[in-house]
């Protein structure tokens, strides 16, 4: 019996633990399905595989080989650690060996994943001394090796942003590569949802167009984590007919998934023991038995906190024996540090890691035995990704999900069937979004003149004629030519977050050393002056934050507290473009300013987590100017009457719930992701003088979601009512109006209250037409 099995038995008999478990699910082991190495596999490659101990393939790997070698575009959906990368590496390496001119492009959503893939490939390539040249080409690639990568790299590992702004606009330099491009691998394709996914579809249109120009017609291989519609999403992104492989042939050891709700410490107020301390306690139980453990925390600060608590506890117990090494891991560490930790986890010199969701994606850190989530991540699929980090081929593993007091966590932990039974979220894209399509048409015409008849998509010419009026393209002889001084890709970002990172400089005793970096908005919330910044367990005091020059100076310190900023969000209507006064409600389309202000911070004592003081933060507000649809409920409208039928106390709650409902339902109509939409509600809105609900584009400048929502509002509201009627939950759940939240709930049944308002509102006339 393994240490883990013994410990699981112990936990089962430990009343203090088991009383807080709301579900203990055992997923039986599976023997796996194997196939021999394909007969037609190159002998060199087969030897290299045997050299790494791979004598046969899992059934899904063999199926991928069959489909890809028969020239089919393929989507592969299998869980973490099921040997997914071999599904594409095998046919690609084989082709590179057989026909050295072959080129392949691997796209990963993050630079960290590219690095990891390069390491993985180098592993297999070195092992058999396979003569295949692999190069990472991203923002970190030194200028000096770029030229060699372009001309001799057979497999180029990159990311969509680099393809968009570096490779495609400079395609003549990539002629050797593009002319011979036979495979395009898109890993983690589930991350390309909503607006990011819509950009991705257009980026693939551009890539295929340039490939056609050079006479290449690459095959697409996409890999996805479990989502509701992986193959549909993949085929929307690459716009090809895709074959789907979703049967996992990898063997799997028995797996325990435990939902754990920390005990109440204050029954009256419903306060539970905090996830940080619970996670520490559980992680220590595992680590002390030398069980390899990963802890997921929700924020960067919590990651550092849990790691340092664990290390402190271990130091006490093992003063003479510090062979147990536990590290923290998150975005913001320097690449070298991250690589070192990943390596340590793989080779076993690091026993435990505390991480943000940075390790959720496919970075290879080897097999772990236990995964503990300190607070559930935002979505069910994300929770399964974290749980999937623990799991080996033939031994037992465990994932423990610790609920926080957040209503979403509480719902999941109290409704285990929802968690275990729900099919994961669907991913949508809308490549025809006016803003996004226009942006990519600019890039496309820069890359190669666009013929009027060219299908990009087939109505692209309408858009290009509109662009012609603004003077950036010139239409002559049935073709659109880029006719502007700028480099369009430079001003078009595929993601919301800017790349403007703030560099953190350790200035202790005149030192001047960069220890990490953090994105701009994160900087304002975490490294303001007088904040305590924790980096790999060390505390630093922030001396100054220079947002303008993107620098933050810190000095090492040793205090007994950490800091936590209080963030306030506020909305201001700048102007209305359209106002519709309808009998049922008033809607406006217009510009708003979403302001985020961090004005204060709390000092929180380590260990006890008591609040030991406040400090002021003097930083300018973070502002986002965007487009919104505002729905107002003045008393003379049907919507206002519906809301007015409730008691004044429950009105704010119901508006907020209505907001959650629309955020859940709108992505289906807008073909976006729920993270692309912002929601805010105000019961006494100063602009309307009546209760109002704001739904806005979560992108500076807006990308047309609010406008579409305005046109489809009636449909969206009706769909919301249908969803409520069809939802099996009793009082609201994350899929409809959000879980019940005992801290704010006034109504006996919020779901019924929301339903009654919506039904009354929709009972008279059509909305939004």
């Amino acid at each position, binding site marked *: 019996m393994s240490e883990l099995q013994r410990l699981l038995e112990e936990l089962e008999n430990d009343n203090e633990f088991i009383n807080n478990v709301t579900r203990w699910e055992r997923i039986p082991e599976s023997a796996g399905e194997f196939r021999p190495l394909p007969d037609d596999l190159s002998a060199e490659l087969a030897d290299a595989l045997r050299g790494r101990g791979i004598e046969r393939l899992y059934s899904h790997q063999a199926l991928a080989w069959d489909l890809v070698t028969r020239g089919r575009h393929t989507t592969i959906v299998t869980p973490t650690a099921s040997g997914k990368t071999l599904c594409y590496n095998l046919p690609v390496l084989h082709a590179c060996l057989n026909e050295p001119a072959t080129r392949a492009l691997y796209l990963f959503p993050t630079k960290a994943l590219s690095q990891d893939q390069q390491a993985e490939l180098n592993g297999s390539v070195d092992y058999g001394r396979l003569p295949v040249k692999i190069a990472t080409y991203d923002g970190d690639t030194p200028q000096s090796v770029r030229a060699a990568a372009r001309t001799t790299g057979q497999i180029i590992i990159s990311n969509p942003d680099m393809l968009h702004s570096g490779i495609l*606009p400079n395609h003549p330099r990539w002629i050797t590569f593009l002319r011979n491009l036979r495979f395009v691998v898109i890993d983690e394709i589930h991350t390309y949802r909503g607006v990011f996914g819509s950009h991705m579809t257009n980026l693939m249109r551009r890539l295929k167009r340039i490939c056609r120009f050079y006479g290449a017609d690459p095959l697409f291989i996409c890999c996805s984590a479990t989502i509701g519609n992986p193959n549909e999403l993949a085929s929307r992104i690459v716009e090809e007919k895709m074959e789907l492989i979703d049967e996992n042939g990898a063997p799997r050891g028995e797996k325990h998934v435990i939902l754990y709700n920390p005990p109440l410490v204050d029954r009256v107020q419903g306060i539970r023991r905090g996830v940080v301390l619970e996670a520490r306690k559980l992680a220590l139980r595992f680590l002390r038995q030398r069980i390899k453990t990963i802890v997921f925390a929700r924020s960067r600060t919590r990651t550092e906190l849990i790691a340092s608590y664990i290390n402190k506890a271990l130091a006490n117990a093992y003063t003479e024996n510090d062979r147990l090494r536990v590290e923290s891991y998150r975005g913001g560490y320097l690449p070298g540090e991250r690589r070192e930790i990943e390596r340590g986890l793989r080779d076993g010199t690091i026993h435990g890691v505390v991480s943000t969701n940075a390790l959720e994606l496919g970075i290879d850190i080897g097999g772990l035995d236990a995964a503990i989530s300190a607070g559930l991540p935002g979505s069910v699929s994300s929770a399964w990704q974290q749980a999937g980090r623990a799991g080996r081929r033939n031994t037992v593993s465990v994932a423990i999900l610790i609920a926080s007091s957040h209503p979403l966590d509480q719902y999941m932990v109290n409704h285990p069937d929802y968690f275990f039974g729900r099919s994961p979220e669907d991913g949508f894209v809308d490549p025809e979004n*006016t803003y996004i399509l226009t942006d990519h048409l600019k890039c496309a015409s820069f890359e190669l003149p666009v013929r009027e008849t060219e299908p990009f998509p087939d109505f692209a010419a309408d858009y290009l*004629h509109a662009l012609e009026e*603004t003077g950036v393209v*010139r239409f*002559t002889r049935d073709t659109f030519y880029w006719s502007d*001084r700028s480099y*369009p890709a430079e001003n078009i970002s595929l993601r919301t977050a800017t790349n403007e990172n703030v560099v953190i400089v350790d200035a202790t005793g005149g030192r001047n050393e960069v220890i990490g970096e953090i994105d701009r908005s994160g900087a304002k919330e975490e490294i303001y002056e007088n904040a305590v910044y924790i980096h790999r367990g060390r505390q630093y005091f922030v001396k100054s934050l220079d947002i303008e020059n993107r620098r933050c100076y810190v000095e090492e310190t040793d205090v007994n507290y950490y800091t936590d900023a209080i963030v306030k969000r506020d909305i201001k209507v*700048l102007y209305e473009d359209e106002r519709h006064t309808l009998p049922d409600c008033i809607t406006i389309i217009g510009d708003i300013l979403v302001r985020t202000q961090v004005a204060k911070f709390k000092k929180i004592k380590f260990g006890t987590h008591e609040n030991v003081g406040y400090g002021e933060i003097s930083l300018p507000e973070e502002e986002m100017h965007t487009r919104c649809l505002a729905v107002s409920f003045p008393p003379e409208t049907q919507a206002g009457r519906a809301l007015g039928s409730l008691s004044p106390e429950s009105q704010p709650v119901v508006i907020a719930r209505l907001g959650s409902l629309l955020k859940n339902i709108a992505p289906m109509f807008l073909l976006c992701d729920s993270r692309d939409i912002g929601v805010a509600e105000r019961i006494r809105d100063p602009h309307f003088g009546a209760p109002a609900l704001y739904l806005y584009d979560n992108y500076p400048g807006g990308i047309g979601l609010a*406008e579409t929502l305005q046109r489809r509002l009636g449909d969206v509201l009706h769909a919301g009512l249908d969803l409520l009627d069809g939802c099996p939950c009793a009082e609201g759940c994350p899929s409809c109006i959000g879980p019940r939240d005992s801290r704010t709930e006034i109504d006996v049944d919020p779901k019924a209250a929301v339903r009654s308002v919506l039904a009354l509102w929709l009972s008279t006339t059509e909305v939004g037409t």
Partner: protein
Amino acid sequence: MSDPLYERLQRLKRTRQVRGEEPSTGTTAVGVTGGVEAVGKSSGDEADASLTRLGFRSPSSGIRERRVFRRIGADAQRIRRLCEPPGGYLVPGDGKPLLFFDAETTGLSAGAGTVAFLVGAARVISDDTIEVVQLLLPDYPFEPEFLARTADLLTADSRLVSYNGKSFDTHVLRSRFLQSGCVWDEPHQIDLLYSTRRLWSAVLSDCRLSTVEACVLGVERELDLPGSEVPERYFAFLDTGAGEVMREVIAHHEQDMVSLVRLLAAIEDVLDAAPDNANASVMPSDPIGVARMLAPYDVERAIGILRRRVDSSGPFGGGPAAMVMLAGLLKRRGKHSEAAEIWSVLFRYGCSELAGVELAKHLEHRERDFEAALAVCEGIIGVCGASTPSLDHRRARLLRKIAGSPSS
């Protein structure tokens, strides 16, 4: 934020939806037909007439070519002689003609969408005259023809002289040739930017050609067009067909090539006349740069220049950079003890690690004074506060030698 483009695109999108996703024929959309006609007009006769006034001919529909002669005086003869044996410092005297080359482009990036719309080459045709040829692209669709003519102009049996052409102009051209499937057998190129940087970057505020013209060649352009406005003029020309908007662009481009001729002559003069560079140019050049450029041809003269510089005002008169270079050249010429003297000064007063290492090498291998070499090694470690593996290695070897063990 009422964005007219956005409004229009939304309207177009709605029209499309009303039409039921049918593939668009393009011409049904608002205002498109008018646009096409206007475009047609711009490359018509009217445009040609205005270009003729600027001196352009149309040898074929896709090419506008301008050919002018400029008297530039003695520089022409100077350049002519450089092409003959023994040549100059930058120009090998192999008889290949020099083409002073420049391109104007639609953008500042070298990406795929940047088009070279004006390409020119100047060559010396007599002892005081140059001929400048300028090719103008009348509109984008004519590019293949335009490039074919460009390839005829910039032939491989000549040598290009450019300013920043290596990393920009020829790069854009190469990209254009690749995209239009035309072939260009690219000639060798002498990029004057690099020499200019060596000679004058220390004294000029920047190395833009206009700055170099003003400060080195003493040329002041009247009413010159700012470089950033050049693409805008071309777009305006394409839109309206009015050749007149190109007048300043053409003049600016022509002047660039004339300046290239003068600049090459000036650089060769500076190197020829060094160390007496007083009358070679308006702007005194950096002796270190001159020495660096001369060294491959004439080490003795390079040494002379540096020595003058270093001796002129005692130790550090010429600055450590001049001393380091001088010592290096002396070593190359076998003048070891003279080099060692300089290193010793640099090490003692300047705390230069590099000089220390050279000094230690000299003491160990030439003078065979191991004690002194060891003292220098330890001095370096003391000055730098840390050792390096190679210093440790040297130190250990010296200690062994001092102890009498002959192995090294």
